[in-house]
């Protein structure tokens, strides 16, 4: 069992204890040195391979790791290892699954929507619900949102990830079709899978909304500022 260092460094990189002081501290002369030598695994360097052909000697010893066929002209430094751990963005304390939130940007700006959860990408998964205010299952960044103190008690929802929101890229054109205008219908069409998922989610969220008095009409209305109202002075 290894012990932590019995010495420490003083500012300036100077070790605190001298060699003899550390020797005294270690007191190895008082203990039995139990050095556990890890068993050395015998790794084979060569292996024998059977070779076909009558006149080829039947077998051949071949090194397990072949030497490289190619060496670069100059030795390049290997870049440092990237140890970055990707975590979803830290969610504001005021945003919780079920909290009602005001969208600040986009076509749905001013609408009040229900937050379902935070996706692994860090974005908030939000829904109107679609039946109430026309906001579908949508991803929204928490910085484009004002969190209100109102919360809806959501039942257990099916698992949703970022995958369904991925848009299919434009099909790459090959040489022949490079200059052919295939503009046609490149507009985004909602997949049937999304429509079905929306219906499923709405069926769970809408009853939870209806339980609270006036919450449905609240979600239908848009947030506006009137004279004398300043968002930094208002409580949400």
């Amino acid at each position: 069992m290894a012990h932590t260092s019995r010495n420490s460094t003083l500012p300036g990189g100077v070790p605190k204890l001298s060699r003899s002081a550390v020797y005294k501290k270690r007191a190895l002369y008082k203990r039995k040195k139990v050095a556990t030598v890890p068993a050395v695994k015998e790794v084979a360097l060569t292996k024998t391979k059977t070779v076909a052909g009558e006149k080829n000697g039947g077998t051949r010893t071949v090194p397990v790791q072949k030497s490289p066929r190619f060496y670069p002209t100059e030795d390049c430094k290997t870049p440092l290892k990237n140890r970055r751990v990707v975590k979803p963005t830290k969610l504001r304390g005021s945003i919780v699954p079920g909290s009602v939130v005001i969208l600040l940007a986009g076509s749905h700006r001013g609408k009040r929507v229900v937050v379902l959860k935070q996706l692994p990408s860090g974005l908030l998964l939000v829904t109107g619900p679609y039946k109430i205010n026309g906001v579908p299952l949508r991803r929204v960044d928490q910085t484009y949102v004002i969190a209100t103190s109102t919360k809806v008690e959501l039942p257990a929802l099916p698992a949703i990830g970022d995958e369904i929101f991925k848009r299919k890229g434009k099909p790459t054109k090959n040489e022949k079709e490079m200059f052919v205008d295939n503009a046609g219908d490149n507009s985004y069409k909602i997949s049937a899978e999304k429509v079905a998922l929306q219906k499923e989610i709405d069926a769970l969220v809408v009853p939870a909304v209806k339980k609270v008095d006036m919450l449905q009409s609240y979600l239908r209305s848009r947030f506006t500022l009137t004279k004398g109202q300043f968002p930094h002075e208002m409580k949400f």
Partner: protein
Amino acid sequence: MLYKRYIEIGRVCFIRLGDDIGKYGVIVDLVDQKHLLVDGPDGIGRKVVRLNQVALTDIKINIPRGCKTKTVRTAMAKEGVEAKLAATSLVKKFAAKNAKAQLGDFARFKNRVAKTASNRKIRSTVRKLKKSS
């Protein structure tokens, strides 16, 4: 008499601006033309406030000038200053304004809906009365 509430020793004043907003104290001494020495319960203690931070109330208690905090507090308790103050319209209005500011977005929405509904009712009743008269 134009003025009924004077700046005098023992006048209870309500602090309407600054760090101690919402608290009250008793004028214990005058510092200069624009500053008062005020003493109140635990929340405020004894401190100098500006005249414009303060709103005078109708309540006045009997204390000698510059008396100790203990004297002030016993005199306030004897007169029941806190209860009298809570009954004043000044404090009531302040509390109402504060409560409104603390409302969340949903509460504001509900208030607005209720207000428009009641306004509609009022207008329709007025119209009916006008028609009948």
